């Protein structure tokens, strides 16, 4: 493990990837209803194009992107629009969502669609095609990919970094993408390189996925300038800045974007899905999602249509065990707990994690004993101990000015190591929203 590329600090949570890593992905049956929020991405919500009663086919555009940083929404199954209403969203709010009653008799074939060969599209127009397909980053943030593939002219990108770290414990969806669709990944990289007008790419994979590394090496096309870099297994290796540090040995300046040092990071599943768009004409309507944890009876990797309700997923995976305690969308480190079984699975949902009481046992919050473990954990070299004290004292201004709250990426490493169980990253998230409120008011 030593000697492998990585970044400083970080943590080593138990991985638990063995639960699902070996399970090949299978198509998830179409549910009786899909719920498609107009906002499944970072940016402006899309504008609904359909009305209740409209019939839609699988892959139809049902909501149009609004503005540049926004993303188009497609029907993920054929059926009838039942309503457009406020519906629980995985982020805990109510969001305007299109409710489609799935046609049980439909074959769910895609409507034939004319997609140009990507090789024939001009570099600058590639991102438009990608935007049309509603592609957003599948690495967790769901940032519209066409925006990233259109870097500002004054900060040209020189290196495309494919993020195949999947550093969150439990999750294995990216792992399965590499094992099952390596050529799609390479195809996606080619498209990305063409869109960016560059030639060089790097794939960063954590050392705990030897079979994926092997597969990517085996299938690597000879004519491509792409390097496979094996990285140390450490959380949050997959965070953009950490990955860039490990691969390029450069730090993205505080407050700047990766393009400031000529890099662009894309998730491996995002790349594969971009390729799929051109290959199949299929917009982004489903993805591989890991359903895992000791609290679900039949864990596995599934290609689930977006909009499928959590309730349906659980039911299909054998239901919850007796001691299941917490349901999380995403990984255990950054994922969000879900209170409502009706929330739909979305583009950003990389995994559904059902933890048992043993796995997520809460202990009492003790006073901070200044052990410094959080400082030794923070990958962006903040001082969570001080930030925690400032947050508790509600001294937000100092938190931003002196303690650099804005550089915190809420990775949770500090909370993970804190022996006193202080919910540091939670406090930082709250402080951030408090600051936003202060700024807007």
């Amino acid at each position: 493990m030593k000697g492998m590329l990585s970044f400083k600090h970080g943590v080593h949570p138990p991985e638990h990837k063995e639960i699902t890593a070996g399970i090949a992905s299978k198509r998830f049956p179409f549910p009786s209803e899909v719920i498609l929020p107009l906002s499944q991405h970072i940016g402006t919500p899309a504008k609904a194009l359909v009305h209740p009663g409209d019939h839609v086919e699988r892959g139809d555009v049902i909501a149009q992107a609004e503005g540049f940083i926004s993303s188009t929404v497609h029907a993920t199954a054929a059926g009838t629009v039942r309503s457009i209403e406020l519906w629980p969203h995985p982020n805990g709010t109510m969001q305007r969502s299109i409710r489609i009653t799935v046609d049980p008799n439909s074959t769910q074939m895609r409507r034939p669609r004319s997609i140009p060969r990507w090789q024939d599209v001009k570099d600058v127009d590639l991102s438009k095609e990608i935007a049309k397909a509603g592609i957003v980053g599948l690495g967790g943030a769901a940032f519209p990919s066409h925006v990233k593939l259109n870097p500002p002219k004054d900060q040209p990108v020189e290196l495309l970094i494919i993020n195949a770290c999947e550093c969150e414990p439990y999750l294995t969806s990216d792992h399965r993408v590499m094992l099952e669709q390596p050529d799609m990944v390479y195809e996606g990289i080619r498209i990305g390189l063409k869109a960016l007008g560059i030639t060089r790419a790097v794939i960063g994979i954590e050392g705990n996925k030897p079979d994926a590394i092997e597969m990517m090496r085996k299938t690597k096309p000879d004519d491509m300038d792409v390097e496979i870099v094996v990285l140390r297994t450490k959380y949050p290796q997959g965070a953009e800045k950490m990955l860039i540090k490990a691969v390029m040995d450069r730090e993205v300046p505080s407050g700047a974007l990766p393009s400031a040092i000529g890099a662009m990071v894309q998730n491996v599943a995002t790349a594969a899905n971009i390729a799929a768009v051109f290959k199949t004409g299929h917009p982004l309507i489903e993805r591989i999602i890991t359903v895992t944890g000791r609290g679900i009876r039949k864990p596995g990797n599934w290609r689930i249509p977006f909009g499928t309700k959590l309730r349906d997923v659980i039911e299909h995976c054998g239901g919850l065990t007796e001691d299941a305690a917490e349901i999380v969308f995403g990984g255990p480190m950054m994922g969000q707990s879900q209170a409502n079984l009706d929330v739909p699975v979305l583009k950003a949902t990389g995994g559904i994690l059902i933890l048992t009481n043993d796995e997520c046992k809460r202990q009492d919050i003790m006073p901070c004993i200044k052990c410094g473990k959080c400082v030794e954990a923070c990958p962006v070299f903040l001082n969570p101990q001080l930030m925690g004290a400032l947050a508790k004292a509600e001294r937000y201004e100092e938190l931003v000015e002196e303690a650099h709250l804005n550089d915190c990426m809420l990775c949770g490493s500090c909370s993970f190591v804190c022996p006193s169980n202080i919910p540091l990253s939670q406090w930082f998230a709250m402080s951030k929203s408090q600051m936003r409120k202060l700024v807007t008011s």
Partner: protein
Amino acid sequence: MTDSTQVKITASPHVRSAESTVQIMWSVVISLVPVLAASIFFFGPSAILVIGASVAGCLLTERLFGSNPGSVADGSAVITGLLLGLSLPPGFPMWMAFLGGFFGVAFGKLIFGGLGQNIFNPALVGRAFLQAAFPVAITTWPARAGNWWTLQGDNLALPFMTPVVDTATAATPLGNLKFADEPVVTPIFDLFFGTTSGSLGETSALFILIGGLYLAYRGHLNWHIPLSIFVSAFAVSGIFYAIGISQFPPFFMLFSGSIMFGAFYFATDMVTSPVTNKGCWLYGFGIGFLVVIIRIWGGLPEGVMYAILLMNAMVPFINRATQPRLFGTSGKKKKKEAAS
């Protein structure tokens, strides 16, 4: 579980490391077992009486004056009591040990708001109080005489009364070198196994090392601190010894007195040491340096307690000065850019 009302909702991260503060504290107590056993082996029932009294003082104070009635169970007051007791001479009156425990916990810890919030090491605050209040009793080192079960001094002196039993005294290795008419350097072997006189817990470097290394292995103490203390004490005393202005050989400096004990157990108290590793280096170097200065030129034979307390006082300042360098910056304050 099928009903959504039973689901837990918590903020991320949803998993936590296995380490907990309470468990760390009790590990420290466990790691002290060899030292406790050694002190009882060397000093007999007196050790039990003195340590018992100081633990009782600490626990009672924590229970009576602590803001949180459950705080006794977190183990930190037990550590304070054990360490205070182990830092006292064998013949020390129990009432004084009890008083030290009270003072340390009340004015070294609870007045700041309890666990984690104190500036000074509570055990050392208690000891410094005792040293200043009863300087004679706390510097009386009984000669080891009689049987294992005879008391080493007037442990049972009545509260507020002077210890009256006249004990034959024996100088400590440090006293032997500093104040004796003919200075003697005690052999390292004796210092290592603890056959000398001194405070209950400090005499045997061997047992302290066992406990300290166990803690370092478990990750419950920051090894930067003891290491930097040893390096700086060794280097500073080595220089003075080499140029002939000190009579303390550097190895003697490391193994005599309470520097081992202090470096592994007192200086490493997380609450009262710096948060960053860089800060811990500075802190350790400061302690090592001050110990050497006080031992060579000060009025007292030993300076570990004062060195640690003085550096405890510096910790808030060190913490200010050793903030980690923010990722993606050169380390200079980003504030300046923001201001301009």
